[in-house]
């Protein structure tokens, strides 16, 4: 009885030993994987920091202005002048009521076969 029990204990301890070692090796494997990932992340963070720095340089007014100046003539752009600014308040008000006489004249003209828009287009040489 005792002998059987001892055999059982020995087998059990061997099994547990195998189990513990398997666990140990799998953890070591995971740790290696983790440190590899960490190294990878660090490397990518390094690359990311360089890309971010590049992006910051490309966004600097000091970087953009020379480009604008270089293409100034080609794009026909000039520095904005004060007189080019306007405000909504400066727009003329909408006429109080529609100009009915002009509208009537327009519709009559169209009825008579004269299209003022066509006349403009012909004048401009379009069509």
């Amino acid at each position: 009885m005792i002998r059987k029990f001892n055999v059982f204990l020995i087998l059990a301890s061997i099994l547990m030993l195998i189990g513990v070692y398997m666990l140990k090796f799998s953890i070591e494997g995971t740790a290696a994987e983790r440190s590899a990932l960490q190294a990878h992340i660090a490397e990518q963070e390094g690359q990311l920091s360089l890309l971010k720095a590049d992006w910051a340089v490309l966004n600097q007014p000091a970087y953009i202005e020379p480009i604008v100046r270089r293409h100034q003539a080609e794009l026909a752009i000039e520095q904005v002048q004060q007189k080019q600014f306007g405000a909504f308040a400066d727009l003329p008000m909408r006429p109080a009521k529609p100009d009915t006489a002009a509208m009537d004249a327009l519709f009559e003209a169209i009825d008579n076969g004269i299209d003022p828009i066509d006349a403009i287009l012909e004048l401009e040489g379009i069509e």
Partner: protein
Amino acid sequence: MAVVGDEFAPTISLDGARKARGNLTQARIRWMILALVIGFSLVGGRLIQLGFVETDQRIEGQTRDAITATRPPILDRNGLEMAVDIRVPSLYSEPRLIVDVEEAVQKLRTVLPEIEETWLRNRLSGEQGFVWVRRELTPAIQEQVMRLGIPGIDFITESKRFYPAMNEASHILGSTNVDNQGIAGIERHMDSESVALLQELGLARGNALTPVELSVDMRVQHVLHDQLLDAMTRYQAIAAAGVMMDIYTGEIIALASLPDFNPNEPATALVKDTFNRITAGIFEPGSIFKTVTIAGALDAGAVRINDDFDARYGIRFGRFTISDFHGKNRILSLPEVYKYSSNIGTIRVMQALGKENFRAFLTRMGLDARVPFELPEMRLPSVPKDFSDVGAATASFGHGLSVSPLHMIAAYVAFVNGGNYVPPTLYKRDIAEAEAQYTRVLQPKTSDLMRYLMRINAIEPGGSGSQMNKLALGYRVGGKTGTAEKVVDGRYSSSKVTNFFASAFPLDNPRYAMVILVDEPKAENPQSGTTAGWNAGTVTGRVIQRVAPMLGVAPDFSELLDKQLVPSVLR
């Protein structure tokens, strides 16, 4: 035991039961001893094995955190990066692992020829475990060195500060040393505040820190820097500087001083004359100081806006006679004293106030103490403790005392914002925060009069700001010129001058104040002069013409706005 054993003994027994049992026990003991010896020798062997293992003493394993210590990114008020951390490779060596020092030296010098040979040889000889060879290299050089395949030479990644705007905001940002510690500018201030502590506690290690937001607007900063560079060549000046401030929050919108340096190469900051003229330069302010004198006298009620002052003759102090630069030689009204920048008139204004009151007013405006400001590069102003009669007279038009342009802008801000002194700052601040730090120095009605005086100097014929106004038409700018003669060989020289233009815009509802300095300018062409209106004034005009739309100030040509500035007594 023996007694029990006897009954089960075999029929033929060569040995006695006691002997047989004894033998068995001895055999068991031997097995046990063997097992123990094997066990202990295993442990001992392992110990010896461990004794031979070399521990990892390379920097990789130990101090990686300390050298990748990071700093928070610095952003401008719109979120554009002004300083970021980048990871760069640094070359180090383990001299005790180097087999052939001579070979290593020759090979390394093929890639890094700028390293001195004997220095490198000494560096790589010996038994040390770790020495730096070159820090903060480029990935391309790393690749080349790795290809050489020298044993005992390796790279490690370090954090390095990078300033994408290069020179543009150099005096604001300052720089950091190779160990990522701030040594100048706002970087140094950040360290004294919090970053150094974080690094020490190990919290600033490779993880993202909250960005620091500055009050600076990089667009405005760029325009200011660009125009100052232009001024340096246009007027062949030895230096130029400028600062713009939000008058209600006290935020510095832009601050530049030329010559400057590239913070990416901290050594360039050591070149002579690259100091920050806005905070660390003190100058005789010249006529822009008349604004201070007049503001003090108006606020105390010593003079009124419609008073007249006799500027027909120079004022004598013993041997000296002080007269006007562009003398009108007639009786001038107060606005005319300001507009024609009359020294005589200003002395009379100061005398009406009294020299003790005048001196006390300078203290109230913070002109004789350090400006509370973040940058460590600051110089104390030089203002006499007590004024003599002649000392007070010259001080009233800005001679015989020296202050920094930062002092002047802080004073001008108070003149136009309703009379509150607000300490300038480089960090983002909202109005509520700023209001808590307001000190009332002028009555609001004095501030209204100062706006009027500054504006007429720009729009009325003969005003010294008319050059400026021509360029910045519609943006309702007003300001005061200041041409301060420099002392050369003990006397004031009329050819070497420091020119200032202190301004504010849009004056109908002011938002920003600016001080521009141009040092020792020459005439741009034979038709122009060297007084401040020709250089500092036009620089101001050009800067405002470009930045006003960025700052949301739309041009308005309506004369009504200027008319509204005129005080009721003069209408």
